[in-house]
């Protein structure tokens, strides 16, 4: 079963398309990183999935339930919006009670235990918590609902590095405990590198890359060699992104099938997640899944 499945999903705001013909099938059981530059359509996609926005065209199914945003669907999804909006004038305890009353399932013990571990006092007003604590409270409220799918929109955006680390640690502990599926968006790829096992790259409202992180990393590598021979290599291999620095060229290539040995005079290196994402984002024409379109771009960048 797929946690989120879309077909031809499009959303237009005025004259701009936030999403354009996005097709996705996110399988259950993953921590999915939804990445892309600001304005790529990440928030729109997540909002449509939880019923906060309506698509202009196309379908979306969440946990196999239609329509997205119906009480039946929301019963099993917990959503934490960007900046974790909560009622600032309520105490933490009231916020728990409120969320409990808005849902069919609720695990009060778990919520209180989590807040105890985080040393968040129940009697404190939400508005008096630090932004890290507010994010943790929002996550606690979401997890206490015992969802099958947890959707987080830029959960780390407003947090300092320490709070980011703590937040991700809490999230991963909960995932390990519950086995729930998670979809989280971010424009900071480094934050997701250690936690995400499924990657979706969204660019200009379209799905550019979608796949298991392990598989994606295994089928991409960087080749470094003489710039003069780059065009020749590009003829034979699927180049996602090429950068030339003086006489040296760096090519991020995608293996089709088993990795062929590097051409003579070239050195092969494994790629990191961030490098991979950036390579695709730099060339909106390239896409992984429908098959990358090889292209060599001239770059007068700084010598490596």
């Amino acid at each position, binding site marked *: *079963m797929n946690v989120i499945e879309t*077909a031809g999903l499009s959303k237009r705001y005025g004259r701009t398309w936030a999403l354009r013909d996005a097709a996705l099938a996110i399988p259950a059981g993953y921590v999915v990183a939804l990445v892309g530059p600001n304005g790529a359509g990440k928030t729109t996609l997540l909002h449509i999935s939880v*019923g*906060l926005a309506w698509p202009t065209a196309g379908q979306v199914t969440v946990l196999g*339930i239609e329509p997205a945003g119906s009480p*039946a669907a929301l019963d099993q999804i917990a959503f934490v919006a960007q900046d974790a909006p909560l009622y600032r004038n309520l105490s933490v305890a009231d916020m728990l009670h*409120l969320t409990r*009353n*808005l849902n069919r399932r609720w695990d009060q013990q778990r919520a209180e235990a989590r807040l105890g571990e985080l040393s968040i006092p129940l009697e404190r007003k939400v508005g008096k918590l630090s932004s890290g604590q507010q994010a943790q409270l929002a996550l606690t409220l979401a997890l206490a*609902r015992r969802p099958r799918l947890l959707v987080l929109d830029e959960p780390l955006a407003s947090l300092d590095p320490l709070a980011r680390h703590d937040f991700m640690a809490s999230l991963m502990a909960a995932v390990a405990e519950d086995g729930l599926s998670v979809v989280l968006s971010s424009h900071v790829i480094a934050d997701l590198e250690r936690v995400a096992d499924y990657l979706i790259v969204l660019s200009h409202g379209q799905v550019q890359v979608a796949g298991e992180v392990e598989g994606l990393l295994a089928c991409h590598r960087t080749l470094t060699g003489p710039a003069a021979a780059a065009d020749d290599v590009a003829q034979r291999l699927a180049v996602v992104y090429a950068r030339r620095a003086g006489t040296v060229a760096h090519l991020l290539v995608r293996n089709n099938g088993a990795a062929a040995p590097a051409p003579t005079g070239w050195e092969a290196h494994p790629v990191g997640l961030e490098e991979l994402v950036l390579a695709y984002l730099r060339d909106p024409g390239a896409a992984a899944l429908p098959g990358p379109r090889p292209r060599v771009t001239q770059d007068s960048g700084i010598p490596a």
Partner: protein
Amino acid sequence: MTAVAAPAPQVTRPRPVPWTRLVWVTWRQHRVALAGVAALLGGLALYLLIMGLKIHSGYASVMSCHPVHSAACLTLSGLFNRDYYPFAQVFSIFLLAVPVLVGVFTGAPLLARELETGTFRFAWTQGCGRLRWVIIKLALLAVALTTASYAFSLLWTWYFQVFFTEGLDGLLAQQYFDLRGVDFAAWTLLAFAIGAIAGVLIRRTVPAMAASIAVWTGLGFAVNLFLRKHYQAPLLSTSGTIWENNWVIGQWYTGPNGTVVSQQTIRNVVAHAPGSVQHSPNPSAVTAYLTAHHYTQWASYQPQSRYWHFQLIEGGWLLGLSLILLAATIWLVRRRAA
């Protein structure tokens, strides 16, 4: 990308979150607004109660004064009117603002604050769904406010009753019509409904309040000045005198040939009357002179006996309009994309 091979498991419709739980949510989130309403209405009610008791006891002593036409009794009666009536009039006019205060200050923030602070993204993604959430909030607050303001208008009715009994004012008088009967509650409900829909349309609390107050006040003036007099065709009278507690809408003269004539024509006719008529201490002498010369004084008016009929007409359409606005608010929340 292909669709899932296996058909999606059929989801049995889960039992919804019970209404009673949402009652707690409504109370917890709006208790401050409700406390404000209670403080405003309670403070004013306390004042009405204290003054009402004074007025009623003062009136009882005027009524029990004997003999009625003695100088002492007339003095007592005069003092009673002087002490209570003018202030009660002015105070009551201020009370006309109570429905808009109560309704708008509760209704406008209801959705505008959620939309303004982004908390709707939290509230609308919980398991109960936004439809039930908005319906129960609107329904509970609407009922609470309408009931409270109806009770308040009953208290005002008791407070002011003496002056109506004495015939100092007619029930249809514009400045009191909205304070009595079902209309006070109906105008409160309308203010709440206008506030709620303005909140979801404008999405900001303070501008939504300002717009709601402007719309409500404009509508109130329009109804008072232009609409209410047309609820039923007015009666016509040529008697020249109308019992003062009826609501006089228009007065004019017709000439010998039956057409309406101007005030200037009437002044010219009277100017030619003999001095005994012009300087008569009795104004009916002028009327009698005009009648003798085939000039007829007409008046159109709404009799006081139509009071409840008018109350129900106005209360009815205000209720209908409020329900339409509330339904539209619910529809907007349901359809509104973030």
